[in-house]
């Protein structure tokens, strides 16, 4: 590769100031001594230096139009957001009600013993102690409390004990469960 060819291959970086100082000086020295390469460099400089003159300021009318469109869009966005918030609030309310309102569990009490006839799943019970036996026919029962007697399961899975929780207990458990979800604690 001739020196001129080498210099021309470096002209892009030379113009953009991307050459290391030593190489920059070498190219510059060559350009001073070589009119042909110097002309090439000057022509390239002409383009890059004049390109910034092509900047065009938009009219004030256009800026105003854009601002108006954004304002319109913002109102529409707020309306849409309000719709989503209302929907989310309604779903939350329904979930809360479903969780808080005690589920009726068909059960039978004979003295201290309890028999549950349940086809449901997830009957979550906690807090109290059952002094007698527990018999479950169908369904799954989860225990968080204490069973003092025996547990018998027919066609079901028992890991629970029945008790009646107050609405406040249920509310407390509900928010506890939400909190566990948020902080990534125990799954519920």
């Amino acid at each position, binding site marked *: 590769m001739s020196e001129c060819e080498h210099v021309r291959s470096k002209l892009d970086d030379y113009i953009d100031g991307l050459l290391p100082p030593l190489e920059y000086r070498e190219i510059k020295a060559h350009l001073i001594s070589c009119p042909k390469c110097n002309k090439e460099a000057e022509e390239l400089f002409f383009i890059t230096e004049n390109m910034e003159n*092509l900047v065009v300021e938009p009219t004030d009318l256009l*800026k105003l139009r854009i601002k108006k469109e*954004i304002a319109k*869009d913002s109102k529409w966005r707020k309306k849409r957001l309000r719709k989503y918030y209302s929907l989310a609030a309604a779903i939350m309310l329904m979930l809360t009600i479903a969780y808080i309102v005690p589920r009726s569990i068909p059960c039978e009490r004979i003295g201290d013993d309890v028999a549950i006839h349940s086809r449901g799943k997830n009957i979550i019970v906690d807090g109290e102690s059952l002094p007698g036996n527990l018999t479950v026919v169908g369904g799954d029962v989860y225990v968080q409390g204490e069973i003092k007697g025996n547990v018998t399961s027919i066609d079901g899975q028992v890991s629970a004990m029945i008790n009646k929780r107050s609405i406040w207990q249920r509310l407390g458990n509900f928010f506890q469960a939400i909190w566990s979800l948020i902080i990534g604690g125990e799954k519920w």
Partner: protein
Amino acid sequence: MFSDQELVKMTLKGNKNSFDDIVLRYSTKVYSLILRMLRDPMLAEDLTQDTFLRAYRSLDKYNPAYPFGNWILKIASNLCIDNIRKSKKVAFSDSDTELSLLTQNVFADPQEALLDKETSRELTQALTVLPAKYRLVILLRYLEGLKYEEIATVLEEPLGTIKTKLHRARWLLKDYLFNKKEGEFGE
């Protein structure tokens, strides 16, 4: 004065005036790029508006680690590319001459102003015959002042490709302006 990132945050929190500041800050950059790419002032106005609307609507997706100016230029570049693809061929409208006169420099010396306008006219004319893929790269580099790496990020292309395109664009423009080798151009 608030930074771009601060303005974005304020807009997302519901302060709509903050986005007006963003519009004022970037409308010239966006409009200039689109106008020089598409060469149609009316279309450029519409697409400038679209660019800001798109930016506003997807502001929550903006990554503050990335310069806002580059992000909005990316939106503008994509709109230009889409538009060129749709129209296939950009007509060399009569407005090209008028376009070249839309320069911002104010000169005390009328002779200098005339020279500058003449240069801009020539340069605008040369840009019109440059393929769009080269035109976009050279405009992002010298009109918008982006670095090679930034152009690569904006256009989602490898750095080597950007360097090659920039090299081709510069030499094609030079040949057109000084040697009038128009035959080598082509999309």
